[in-house]
């Protein structure tokens, strides 16, 4: 029993998480101590014990590094205690970010898959366009985000769409690259077999290439959805009037509300994790449906 725990994954992850938590609290004490000493001095309190100092560093209004406890309390306050319609609710901001992310991700991955199918079948596209798609992975295309928001704004395209456009093009490139790799993954032997069956291009595509591409597709969808979320958050920095995690980060950094920033960050991380795990679940369902044995 104990051995199984030791060899498994859950316990090590918990231990490492606990170590990180400990370091975090230690960091909070170290980083916030100066502020707290100043606070004590300002309050005219000269003789304070170390434990008072430490307790103080854990309970500041605007700490340099809030403790995980403070962040959780803020999350609880803004997620559970605040009405979801309120502009202070993280659920409200989360829904803004998630809707743009999901819309963009759907558009981007659909376009990416479409282009991958074209690239696999049209040789000139493969030779001429694909190098650029691959090269696009090495440049920070996210830098285009503020410009796209402003340009679309001039066409009176506002609201969800500009953010979704950015989310779409960020997920587009990884999905294209992964899908092309996947559609190419059948080896020549299998393709030859299809030829001996005198299968048409369409049959080869649906019976061999598509099933072979599934693992690659899901791996790149995970990368794509994470990129979409980052894209949306960055777009919300430029376009902060509609809310969203990015707007929350920006507002927090303007007013020095560190706890608010960290809470938004944790919420965004939770969303990213949820999206990636959702795709992981879909991956498992699809591969099992295709007859893969775990």
């Amino acid at each position, binding site marked *: 029993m104990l051995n199984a725990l*030791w060899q498994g*994954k859950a*316990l*090590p*992850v*918990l*231990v*490492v*998480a606990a170590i*990180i938590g400990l370091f975090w609290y230690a960091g909070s004490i170290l*980083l916030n101590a100066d502020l707290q000493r100043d606070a004590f001095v300002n309050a005219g309190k000269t003789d304070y014990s170390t434990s008072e100092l430490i307790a103080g560093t854990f309970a500041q209004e605007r700490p*340099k590094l809030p403790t995980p406890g403070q962040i959780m309390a803020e999350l609880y306050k803004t997620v559970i205690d605040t009405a979801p319609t309120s502009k202070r609710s993280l659920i409200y901001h989360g829904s803004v970010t998630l809707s743009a992310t999901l819309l963009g991700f759907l558009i981007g991955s659909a376009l990416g898959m479409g282009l991958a199918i074209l690239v696999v079948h*049209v*040789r*000139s596209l493969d*030779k*001429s*366009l694909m*190098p*650029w798609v691959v*090269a696009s*992975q*090495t*440049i*920070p295309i*996210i*830098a*285009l985000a*503020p*410009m796209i928001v*402003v*340009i679309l704004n*001039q066409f009176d395209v506002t609201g969800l769409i500009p953010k979704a456009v950015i989310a779409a093009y960020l997920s587009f490139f990884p999905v294209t690259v992964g899908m092309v790799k996947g559609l190419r993954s059948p080896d020549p032997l299998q393709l030859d077999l299809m030829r001996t069956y005198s299968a048409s291009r369409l049959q080869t595509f649906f019976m061999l290439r598509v099933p072979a591409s599934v693992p690659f597709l899901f791996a790149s969808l*995970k990368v794509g959805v*994470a990129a979409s*979320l*980052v894209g949306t*958050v*960055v777009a919300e*920095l*430029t376009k902060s009037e509609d809310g969203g*995690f990015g707007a929350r*980060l*920006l507002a*927090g*950094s303007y007013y*020095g509300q*560190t706890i608010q*920033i*960290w809470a*938004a*960050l944790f919420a*965004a*991380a939770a969303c*990213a*994790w949820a999206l*990636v795990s959702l795709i992981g679940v879909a991956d498992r369902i699809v591969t099992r449906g295709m007859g893969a044995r775990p």
Partner: protein
Amino acid sequence: MKIFAGSSKLSIIGGALMIFAAVGPLDVGGDMSLLTGTGWTRFIYLALGIIAMREGPIADIPQKSIWNLPGLSLFAAFELVVYAHSAGTRDWGHLLAILGVWLCAWRSVDIVIAQTPARGRASQWMQWLVPLIFGATLLMLWETLGLYFNVPMVILPTPSQIGIRLATSVPVLTADFLQTVQGILAGYVMGCGAGILIAILIDRIPFLQRGLLPLGNLVSALPIVGVAPIMVMWFGFDWQSKAAVVVIMTFFPQLVNTVAGLGAAGAMERDLMKTYGASYGQTLFALRLPAALPFIFNGLKINSTLALIGAIVAEFFGTPIVGMGFRINTEVGRMNIDMVWATIVVAGVAGSLFYGLLAAIERRVTFWHASYR
């Protein structure tokens, strides 16, 4: 040499468009191409049209006339761009010509691909040539269509406008680049270095590895750029805060990749080291680190892009008045979209060069790996 048949129809359509534009509605106006002088545009378009209709669709082009269509397409594209910049009238004959040249360029790509052998020096040339033709075609379309439809600069400047801006703002762009690169390099070295070191340190404790790997994979999917405002608060507006963001972004991918790499050495080789009575350190440096190099480089390459993203996004939150992210953010606000594009070009070129440098070093260092043999 057989050519893929799909685009042969494109060639016929393209040729027809060129001939139609040349003999029909094209108003070549008074001032013509600097290169060829008045009146020659019509002739070039006509020649391209005839060649595209005659030779384009042929599956077996004789060796001596392979370069006719690509060459004439290039010539015609040049004419298009020069005319687009002249003060001549813009009638729809030019639009047809733009479309026609594009289709001919497409067919040219197919011809070039088909004429290149699968192996050898020529195929390496083609690997560069074909994407270059594609990129040039795209730039030509962007330039000519942008001028034809008079797209305002605040929406989409043409490549030439961006190029001019790039050339006239070299000092500003250089200062921005140096500022941002400072943060990127410092953060990249620290983040990747720490990732590799920690991976080696926890190498002897499988328990910690099992705990760190799932967390590391999780963190790689999180929107870590969001820590940028916090780092700006901690380390101030200057490059140090950007370096900090880059450290955090690059650390986990490097850790995960290095840990995976340290497990890559085969059991046979490890046994061999054991029979030599090699110590842990000897095995590490003589066998396992070299075997891990492909993985380490994979992490380094992923991180080169992440570092750029981290630094640029961090600059959206606050900088001294210099830096690529700062430039993008402010020039967008001032509607100087051409300057934004110029900065993006610099960032893109820097990103590709950095990646290319890493790939070149990787080739040098891991020449023994299967993918390079």
